[in-house]
C-alpha cells in the first residue's frame, strides 16, 4: 500500500503540524479520550429544556414532525399493528433480520417473508417491499432511531433498500437527549441514525420525502 512504501508524506505532515504548534503559547495537554465531560470554559447555562413534556410524547411529536408515521401499541397488540400496516399499504414481501422476534410478524398472512442470512444479493433486497426491525435505542428530542447492527436490526443494507421500513421501538430505550447517545450504543458497532424518511431540500429548499433510502418510515412504540 502507498502508506507503507512511502512514509514521507506522513512524516512531513506531522512535522509541519508540530512546528506550527511549537511557535506559540499553546497548552499541550495529554491526550484525553474525550474532553466533553471536562466541560467548557466560561459560565455554563444549564437550563433543561421542556422538562414538562413526557419523553415519549416528545419522541412521537418529533417523529411526526419529520413525517414518520407513529403508532403507540401495547406489547400484546404488536402482531396486529404490524399486520395492519402491511395490509394497509399492500406490502407483498418483507425481509426480516435473523434475530427478529418471529411473533411480531405472525399475523401478516400470505405476505412473503424473507429471512436475511447475509447472503441475499442487493438487487434482490431492493425488490422487496418492506423491512421490519427493532432498534437499539432512540432519541426523543430529535425523533431519531438508532440502529447498530444487532441481530434484531440486521446488516445495514436491509434497512436501506426496501421502500418501507417498519421499526419497533420499546419505550424503555427512548432517551431524551442526543447527549446521552453513546452511553446507550457502542460506538464501534455499524451505526445508522435515522430521523424521518430519506429527504432532500436541494430544489428550492422544498423538503421532498423519499430519495434513495426508504420513502416510508413507520415507527411502532411499544410499552
Amino acid at each position, binding site marked *: *500500500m*502507498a*502508506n507503507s512504501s512511502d512514509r514521507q*508524506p506522513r512524516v*512531513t*505532515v*506531522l512535522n*509541519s*503540524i*508540530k512546528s*506550527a*504548534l511549537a*511557535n*506559540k503559547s499553546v497548552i*499541550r*495537554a495529554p*491526550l484525553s*479520550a*474525550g*474532553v*466533553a465531560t471536562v466541560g*467548557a470554559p466560561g459560565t*455554563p447555562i444549564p*437550563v433543561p*429544556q421542556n422538562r414538562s413534556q413526557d419523553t415519549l410524547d416528545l419522541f412521537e411529536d418529533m417523529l411526526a414532525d*419529520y413525517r414518520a408515521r407513529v403508532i403507540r401499541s401495547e406489547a400484546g397488540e404488536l402482531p396486529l399493528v404490524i399486520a395492519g400496516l402491511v395490509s394497509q399499504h399492500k406490502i407483498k414481501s418483507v425481509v426480516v433480520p435473523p434475530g427478529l422476534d418471529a411473533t411480531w410478524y405472525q399475523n401478516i398472512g400470505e405476505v412473503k417473508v424473507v429471512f436475511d442470512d*447475509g447472503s441475499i444479493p442487493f438487487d434482490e433486497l431492493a425488490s422487496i417491499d418492506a423491512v421490519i426491525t427493532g432498534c437499539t435505542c432512540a*432519541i426523543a428530542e*430529535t425523533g431519531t432511531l438508532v440502529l447498530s*447492527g444487532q441481530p434484531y436490526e440486521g*446488516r*445495514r*443494507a436491509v434497512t*436501506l433498500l426496501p421502500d418501507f421500513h417498519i421499526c419497533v421501538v420499546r419505550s424503555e430505550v427512548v432517551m431524551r437527549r*442526543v*447527549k446521552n447517545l*453513546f452511553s446507550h450504543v457502542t*460506538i*464501534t*458497532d*455499524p*451505526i*445508522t*441514525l435515522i*430521523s*424521518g424518511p*430519506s*429527504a*432532500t*431540500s*436541494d*430544489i*428550492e*429548499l422544498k423538503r*421532498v420525502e*423519499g*430519495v*434513495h*433510502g*426508504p420513502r416510508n418510515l413507520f415507527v411502532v412504540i411499544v410499552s
Partner: protein
Amino acid sequence: MVKTKIGFPSSSVRQINNSQLRANLKAATSAIREKRARVVGEKEDWEELRRKGEHVRDEILNNLDSYLMQLERSVTAAGGIVHWARDSAEANQIILSLVQGHGETEVIKVKSLTTDELGLNEFLAQHEVTAFETDLAELIVQLAHDKPSHILVPAIHKNRSEIRDLFQRTIAQGRVLSNEPAELAETSRLYLRQKFLSSKIAISGVNFAVADTGTVCVVESEGNGRMCLTLPKVLISVMGIEKIVPGPDDLAIFLELLPRSSTGERMNPYTSLWTGVYPGDGPSEFHLVILDNGRSRVLADPIGRQALRCIRCSACLNVCPVYERSGGHAYDSVYPGPIGAILSPQLFGTESSLSLPWASTLCGACYEVCPVRINIPQVLVHLREKVISQGHRSRTEAMSFGLISFFFQTSRRFELLQNIATRFRVLINHLHVSKSAPGALGKWAEARELPQLPRETFRLWWRRNRDKNGK
C-alpha cells in the same frame, strides 16, 4: 482595498447583475435562516453547546499531531488502511491508484467539499475514471457542467424550472417531467439506483473522525450516503487533518450543533458511523486518506487558525448580506461565503483569493451563528492586515489614510480641516462627488453618497450655545 486584477470585486459584479440568481438566493437563504433560528431556539443550552464545540475543536487543534497518530492507530486496529497526503496531487494519486488497482473505471461519490478542493472528479476523468455524484444537488451541478455555489445546497442558484429542463435533457430516459420537486427527486432516484447496486468503489468525505475509537461519521439527508457507504466493496474516505474529535461524547456535541446550524433540522435524516470494516456488513476494504493541503500552514497563524474549527455547516453563508447578494460563485473557491473568505486565502493563497478578506461588511452576523464560535470578523481584519503588509497595497488608499490620520491626530488639525471645508462648502456641495469622478474617488462614490456640508460645524455650534447659556 487590496490591489488585484481578478477576484471578488469583479466577479461579484457579474453575479449581482444576474437577477434570477439573486431571487433564488434571497428566497433560499431567508427560508433556511428562519428554519435555523426556530430549531436553535428550541435548545435552551445552545450557548453552552457552542462553547463546548469551540473548546473541543481547540483541544484537537492544539494537539493535532498526537490525535492524528491516535486516529491512525485506531483505524488500523479496526481493519482500515490509512494514507497520508501532503497536497491535492498526492491525495488524487493515492485515490487513482486504489481505483486502478481494482481495475475499475467508475466510482460513485457522496457529496464532499474536500474532494471538490482536490479537483478529484476532473483528475479522475483525465485518467479515464468516471466519478458519479450521487447527492441530488451535486448531480444537478455535475450534469450542468456547473460549479457548486453553496456548501450545503450546491445548486442553490438554480430554480425548479431550470432543474427540470436540465433533467429532461440528461437523465429523464424518455419520460416527460414536470417541475415538481418530488418528481425531479424521483427521476434522480431511478437514474442512480442501478449505479448504487452495481458500483464496486465509493468515495466519500468525512464529517468527523473519532481519534479514540477510529470511528468515522458522515451526515446526510437523501440516503445516497448510506448507499455509497454500505453497498460497494471498497470505500475510500478523504478527510482534512482537522476533522477529528477526541472521543464519543465529543462527537455527540457536534451531532447536536451541526444539523441545527446547517439544514435547520433537529437531526438530519441519516447519520452513518463505521469503524474499520465489519464481516458481512458493508465494504470489505476501507481506506482513509488524511489530507494536509495547506492546513498545517494555517495552524501556524494564532489568529487565522480558528478557521480550522469549522465543521462546514454553512450557517455563516445564510446570514451573510454579502453572500446573499453575490452568491457563491463570486468567491471563486470551493469554500464560499464568510468562512470561505477566511479559509480560501489561508489555504490556497491564490491571487483571486487575496481579495476575499474584503468581501465582507464586518457586520458580525457570521460570528453570532457559528456553532464553534469562529470569530470571522476578527480573522478578516487580521487577514486584510496580512495581505496589505505583504505588499498588495493600493497607493491611493494608503495616501488617503495617511492624510486622514494626519488630520485626525490633534483637535487643532481636525478643526483646521473643518474650517477649510466650511469655507468652501458651497463649492464642495455643488460638486456632487459621483461615480463619474476620476479614479478611486469615482469607485468609492459608486456605493456611497457624501452628506451635504452644514453651514456651521458641531464644534462651533456647541461653543456658541454653551457661551449663550452661560455654562
